[in-house]
């Protein structure tokens, strides 16, 4: 019982780290511009498919492909933001939702066109396969890597947001966009950079997710709900909130699948609806 509990906790934390990578960018950009970008997971798929292509077709090592996944997704995010999204910052929630869902549909079709509809995989190096013995228990090496990656990203993000000038601008813009503009902060530029970084992190998450959940053309829609739950529960613009919400969701999803498999995803949706009703702006909202 205890061993299985620890195992579920470990898997849940690893899964939560994945969700954190996928959703933190959306949380911050939503907090800054109130722009509901439902196509965030399409960016994750950019990273995922770049990794699949690089490792399978060009023989790159998996770990070297991860930075490329980040860069490719960030570049696509930048282009999207500059060409399309910036027209819609003052549009209604509904227009933003519809527009970005349109992007999701288009991206799904494009991925299916180029990669087909089968689940893709990317070969991981031997030191990330197998498991590691610790305290008399075995932990999957890849999940340990995932946890380390998630923690590292979280620490870098928090440090950058708290201790750099750019981070201060982003925090100001999240707290009060108009006031930040009034103080001479170039919110548009800060937003552009944040959006690209958030997209890049999603790409990294998409690449890291291949080993755990696989990658197919419907990823953008299937994981959208999870990402939105993390954002809505964690509160907009809060990295700590996203982190906590992602861990909570990861662990409870794993526990639900392990202990109550007949409930399916029911438990997750129930938790989300209950939390939203209790705190509509999220558990750790800055506003």
């Amino acid at each position, binding site marked *: 019982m205890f061993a299985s509990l620890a195992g579920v906790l470990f898997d849940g934390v690893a899964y939560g780290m994945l969700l954190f990578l996928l959703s933190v960018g959306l949380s911050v950009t*939503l907090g800054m511009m109130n722009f*509901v970008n439902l196509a965030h997971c399409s960016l994750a798929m950019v990273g995922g498919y770049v990794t699949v292509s690089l490792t399978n077709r060009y023989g790159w090592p998996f770990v070297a492909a991860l930075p490329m996944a980040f860069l490719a997704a960030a570049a696509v995010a930048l282009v999207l933001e500059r060409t*399309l999204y910036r*027209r*819609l910052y003052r*549009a209604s*929630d*509904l*227009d933003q*939702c*519809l*527009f970005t*869902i*349109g*992007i*999701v*549909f*288009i*991206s*799904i*079709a*494009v991925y*299916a*066109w180029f990669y087909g*509809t089968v689940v893709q995989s990317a070969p991981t190096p031997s030191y990330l396969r197998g498991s590691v013995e610790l305290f008399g228990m075995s932990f999957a090496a890849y999940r340990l890597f995932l946890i380390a990656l998630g923690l590292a990203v979280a620490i870098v993000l928090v440090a950058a947001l708290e201790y750099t000038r750019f981070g201060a601008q982003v925090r100001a813009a999240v707290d009060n966009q108009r006031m930040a503009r009034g103080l001479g902060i170039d919110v548009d530029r800060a937003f552009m950079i944040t959006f690209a970084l958030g997209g890049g992190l999603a790409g990294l998450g998409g690449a890291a997710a291949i080993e755990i959940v696989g990658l197919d*053309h419907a990823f953008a*829609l299937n994981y959208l*709900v999870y990402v*939105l*739950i993390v954002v*809505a529960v964690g509160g*907009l613009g809060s990295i700590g909130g996203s982190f906590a919400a992602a861990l909570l969701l990861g662990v409870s999803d794993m526990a639900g699948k392990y202990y109550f498999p*007949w*409930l*399916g*995803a*029911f438990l997750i*949706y*129930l938790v*989300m*609806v209950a939390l*939203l*009703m209790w705190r*509509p*702006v999220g558990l750790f909202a800055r506003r």
Partner: protein
Amino acid sequence: MRPLEAAFWAATLLPFVVTPSYLALASQVAITALFALSLDLILGYAGIVSLGHAAYFGFGAYTAGLLSKHDFGEPLTGLVLAAIAAGLLGYVTSHLIVRFRHLALIMLTLGLGLLLAEAANSASWLTGGADGLQGVKTAPLLGFKFDLYGRTAYAYSLAVLFLLFLVARRIIHSPFGLALRGIRENARRMPAIGAPSLAHLRKVYTIAAVMAGAAGALLTQTTSTVSLEVLSFGRSADVLVILILGGAGRLYGGIVGAIIYMVARDQFASMNPQYWYFWVGLLLVAVVLFLPNGVLGGLSALYKRPE
């Protein structure tokens, strides 16, 4: 009723004589139009954005299906009971829905929709789960059998659509409808001038749920099948696309959108669904960027320009 409207409703009878082999499709269009009309009441007129409206459609569909499965296949009674059941669900959930706006509202409607879909999937003893509900048999409607050509199905769907359209039209042009538009335009000011905003929103949400449930029941009765698809996120998204395409906040928006969308989908039926969604996506992007009020909004802008 203005001449243009009368001409439109007269034209809906044309499929009986012009394209008798497409009556099944015409019946699907009428059902989808009714569903879109119900979404229009809450989204177009009251400003409640919902990504989970299929919950009420599916609840009505399953209620009608379960009734006819247990030897209660009389369509009219089934339709009324299904609509009432969906309305009850709508009334209960409306207490949660109307208190939220923006992202929380979108997430909550999405969450409730997914919750119901998952519940139906889990309760396979009742709903048949992923296999769909087996043994749905609809009795003849007032003596007319539901035939293969869909003659009864289309007449039935069209009649229900027309009746409920008149109801919606009456609601929209009443002081209550005006109050709803006021809430949509300025949610803070309406309570300030003494309008019971939340009660209004609850009322219209319940009415919309009744209509969505009726649409779901129609689908069950005319096709004699119910599957989990009636509750899916895809159906909620589709109806949103249809309404936006036609023009939200206009009585005919959902109907025009349903005609365009369903006929186009039928024409491209041979296409792989993934690629169909490419065009849907492109359509959404184009509508948001270039046609913010839908096809009807664009048409009326064209019509007014020369003046």
